[in-house]
């Protein structure tokens, strides 16, 4: 793979962020989704009796917060390629010297940046509210969940990366934005499954498990990115037919 031009990736990111800011539906979705995901964990923690000793009571709300970086970027990622195709902006873009990896990285980074910013803001807000307003027993119970807090920090970019890559894979192949966005939500199923396994006690969250999951997810994200790069076929995107070179 020839060297990627970071400046060109930055140009794509800047333009995407500028475009998001001017699209009301994107701004609303980005603001509302994390707010909704903040309600359940907050209620769970504040309604828990002070005598609660079970770790599970504190782990589940924290796990719930991990769904934000999975669900939030999937719609944007699913729109990224097919959306440009539908509005007729993809073909002019593909006539420029941008490489497919630069385009995909730029698009992915433009979704990743607001996702991380909002996810970490929500986590910080949640922890601050717990520390400031929850009963001391509950607060110390939440902050005692080291592996879960580590998972929040480590998994947020990795889960977001997963959701983005899956969303973009769908977007590269889909013929309609709506279909792409519906299929893009499938990205949340595997992480949701993992959350369920933790909740039902099949997986016990420890530091080792958290780090092992993080490494596995990172490898998966990198591999998935390469697959999406291979799927990005200019000819298919412009004509709907796969390129066959002589």
């Amino acid at each position: 793979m020839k060297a990627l031009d970071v400046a060109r990736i930055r140009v794509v990111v800047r333009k995407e962020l500028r475009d998001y800011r001017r699209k009301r539906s994107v701004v609303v979705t980005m603001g509302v989704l994390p707010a909704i995901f903040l309600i359940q964990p907050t209620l769970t923690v504040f309604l828990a009796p002070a005598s609660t000793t079970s770790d599970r009571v504190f782990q589940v709300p924290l796990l719930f917060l991990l769904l934000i970086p999975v669900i939030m970027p999937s719609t944007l990622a699913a729109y990224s390629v097919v959306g440009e195709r539908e509005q007729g902006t993809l073909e002019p873009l593909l006539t420029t010297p941008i490489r497919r990896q630069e385009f995909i990285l730029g698009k992915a980074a433009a979704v990743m940046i607001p996702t991380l910013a909002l996810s970490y803001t929500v986590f910080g807000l949640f922890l601050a509210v717990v520390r400031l307003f929850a009963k001391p027993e509950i607060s110390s119970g939440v902050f005692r969940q080291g592996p879960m807090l580590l998972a929040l920090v480590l998994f947020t970019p990795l889960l977001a990366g997963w959701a983005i890559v899956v969303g973009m894979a769908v977007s590269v192949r889909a013929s309609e934005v709506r279909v792409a966005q519906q299929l893009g939500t499938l990205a949340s199923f595997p992480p949701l499954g993992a959350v369920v396994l933790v909740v039902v006690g099949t997986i016990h969250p420890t530091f080792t498990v958290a780090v092992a999951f993080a490494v596995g997810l990172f490898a998966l994200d990198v591999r998935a990115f390469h697959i999406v790069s291979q799927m990005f076929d200019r000819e298919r995107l412009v004509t709907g037919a796969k390129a066959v070179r002589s």
Partner: protein
Amino acid sequence: MGAEVIAGRPAQENAKGELALVVDQLTKRFGERTAFSDVSFRVAYGEVFGFLGPNGAGKTTTVRTLGTLIAPTSGTATVAGIPLSPENDVEIRRRISIMPESPGLYLRLTVTENLEYFAGLYGLDQPGPRIRDALEAVNLGDRAGDLCGGLSKGLRQRVGLARTLLSDPAVMFLDEPTSGLDPVAAREVHNLIDGLREKGVTIFLTTHRLEEAQKLCDRVAILNTTLRTVGRPEDLREQLFKTALVVKTIAPLGDPDRLFGRIPAVEGWRSESPGSYVLTVSDPTLAAPEVTRGLVGAGADVLSIGEAQHSLEDVYLELVDEDVEVRKP
């Protein structure tokens, strides 16, 4: 057919002796369907080359192929001095610019923001002056801060043209640049292309508008899946149509066959309407006085005698109609 013709002015090469476009037996198939087949032509630097053909003739697919968006099935091409191949895609795209039929602008961004984006993708340092110059070239300097969503179709087309100018390309591909524009907006685009030609920009122009091609292009190619012809519009007219005189009389001639048969310079004749005759002649300048004398001698009331003018449209229709006839079962 695989026509390979460089008619008209000698092809201009650049300092390295390269042509802007060299296309040899290029073919593109999508499964069983052939988009274009066995297409060969040359385009010189500084030339405005018209690419004409009916809908579905393969014009846009040819542009996309030369622009590295789609891969040819067979054949070779050199674009702006670089051989067309997957490993050269990026380098070719650096040297060319393409304006698709629809300008494809980001409607929530301003004109300047759209151009900044593309300037960045072309890796231009200090794009400000380039953007200003491009906007001035298309007379949009005063609309730089407008959102593209608020512009008319004609203005958006002009922004698209400004975008193609940004990178100072060796070859510009303009795919139906006046499609859907009103006559005034189309004329503005014509003036722009004319201005670019004067600056020596190489332009590959696909169009349906034959008068546009006739007015703007140094040479034209007519494509109908295969290349039907390439040449200067005036040469094509001469190749395709015999020279003729058009004679108009106030009243229909009594016996035109006898009258024209007596004039040695007239090789044949046909009547287009009562009182209007088209005479096939080898040299209109020599034939016209003879014909005039013959008509006056026969007592005809002559309204006019002139050389028949064939337009590029006549050439186009002749070739495309020929194809339609051939394809009839």
